[in-house]
């Protein structure tokens, strides 16, 4: 920011912003802390914040009980696979809509978004029957297909708003200079489109990673991702806060870390054409 700011003002901003930041982040922090407590300490009264006997026992238990790495790998394959497949289908569509808009482009887009309003619980039984008959139950392929389809509208829409921001004049200038369509795409458009594609990809990996309805209901053992892993730790008989926290931490850590590292990228692309 160009304005000169007094250090006092900056300190005040910092204090307020950090307070809110920590408040919003606190539930996650608390979960991570709890995952290192014993079950008894997890429900201790008054609660203990930092000064307890740190233990990794919960993680050992969770790793012994569940095949975490298989769930993790399934999550990776399903979320990345569905996102990549979605991008392959969506990029041409968004491209065409942005650069060759027709009368109905807006209607088509809105219709695409409206397919996301189909409540999944209402169509589970039909889909389950179809999947049973074509042998897709409990397969990663099946989940990739479903997640691609449910996230496709969002992917198309994000890409579309992003592509629309690319100035058409540059294209025309390139064309004047005699660039072929291929060169036009490779050297002019792609570099400008990459940030948008990247952030679309990130957002959709997050959405797919966290999708808990289809992933739980269409899998059994082989293709079950981390959402199913969590379902085996929520409210069993007996005390479970600490183990639940450990499992939760393990389920969200990969995506959280990915999100943090790619945060800048995500912010850059999440404009939805909002910047004007």
């Amino acid at each position, binding site marked *: *920011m*160009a*304005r000169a700011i007094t250090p006092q003002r*900056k300190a005040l901003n*910092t204090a307020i*912003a950090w307070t*809110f*930041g920590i408040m*919003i982040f606190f*539930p*996650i922090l*608390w*979960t991570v802390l709890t995952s290192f407590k014993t079950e008894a300490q997890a*429900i201790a*009264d008054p609660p203990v914040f930092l000064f307890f006997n740190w233990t990794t026992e919960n993680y050992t238990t969770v790793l012994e009980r569940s095949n975490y790495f298989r769930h993790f790998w399934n999550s990776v394959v399903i979320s990345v696979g569905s996102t990549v497949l979605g991008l392959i*289908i*969506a990029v*041409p569509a968004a491209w065409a*809509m942005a*650069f060759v808009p027709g009368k109905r482009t807006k209607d*088509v887009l*809105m219709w*695409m*978004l*409206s*397919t996301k*309003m*189909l*409540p999944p*619980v*209402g*169509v589970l*039984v*039909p889909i389950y029957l*179809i999947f049973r008959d074509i042998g897709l139950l409990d397969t990663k392929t099946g989940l990739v297909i479903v997640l691609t*389809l449910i996230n496709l*509208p969002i992917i198309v829409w994000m890409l579309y708003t992003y592509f*629309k921001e690319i100035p058409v004049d540059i294209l*025309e200038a390139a064309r004047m200079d005699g660039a072929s369509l291929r060169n036009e795409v490779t050297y002019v458009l792609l570099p400008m489109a990459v940030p948008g594609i990247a952030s679309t990809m990130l957002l959709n990996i*997050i959405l797919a990673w*966290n999708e*808990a*309805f289809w992933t739980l209901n269409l899998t059994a053992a082989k293709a079950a991702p981390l*959402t199913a892993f*969590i*379902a085996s730790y929520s409210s069993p008989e007996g005390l479970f806060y600490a183990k639940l*926290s450990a499992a*939760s931490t393990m389920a*969200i850590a990969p*995506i959280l870390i990915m*999100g*943090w590292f790619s*945060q800048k990228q*995500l912010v*850059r692309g*999440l*404009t*939805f054409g*909002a*910047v004007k």
Partner: protein
Amino acid sequence: MATQHSRAAARLMISPSVILLLGWMLIPLGLTLYFSFLRYNLLMPGANPFVGWENYSYFLSDPAFKAAIVNTLLLVVGVLVITVVGGTLLAILLDQAMWGQGIVRILVIAPFFVMPTVSALVWKNMFMNPVNGLFAHLAKFLGLPPFDFFAAAPLASIIGIVSWQWLPFATLILLTAMQSLDSERLEAAEMDGAGPLSRFWYMVLPHLSRAITVVILIQTIFLLSVFAEILVTTNGGPGNASTNLTYLVYAESLLRFDVGTGSAGGVVAIILANIVAIFLMRMIGKNLDA
């Protein structure tokens, strides 16, 4: 510049998406429509006779139905208000000069990466539980009686949890929009004696309007089908106090395994969602100039 040729190419490029989505919409929708006219309970196999509108009249006359409509709207509107207002304020805050801006931004967006099931479990057990939750300990520390969130204010509690999950999304998008605001114009306005409120009202807000539209649109799509948070925390209760339409359809089709009535409920939910969508488009669509 669009030639006949490029139009044809464009159509070709769009068609895979359209065909796939059309299939994804029509096949389940067709089956759902078909099932909705049958007496079809998974637990009672046998002939599934055609029963006409019976499933619809049964679903619509369910005493929980009206409550579910109201709760669905309250949930969507409540979360939208909290996330848009909160997101705007946070975006303005994060746009100020400060130390450690990057870290604060990370802290604020973190909840978006948490699975809905996990966040509901964490909030329910570790925060809102009236005996062992942190809020109860806090209340005790202040000498107040603990507040029983899911009994006294079930829907509000769920709105709170869902808002926590979606606040980062709103903040992110609004922050991106904020950063493109011309700070020199703001300064000029300040020189001219415009107070912070009027600067916000006449300059910042109009600039954000498009981003706010995007937030509302995307979130509404997801909020209409909030489900995991309700299942984990209140199971739609007490009574019907936190039953939304999605949850009611779930209760019919996966708790009672009444696929017929569940499908009828699904069709009703789709129709209502599309009415909301049309309203939404009318109200804010022009803001998008897509």
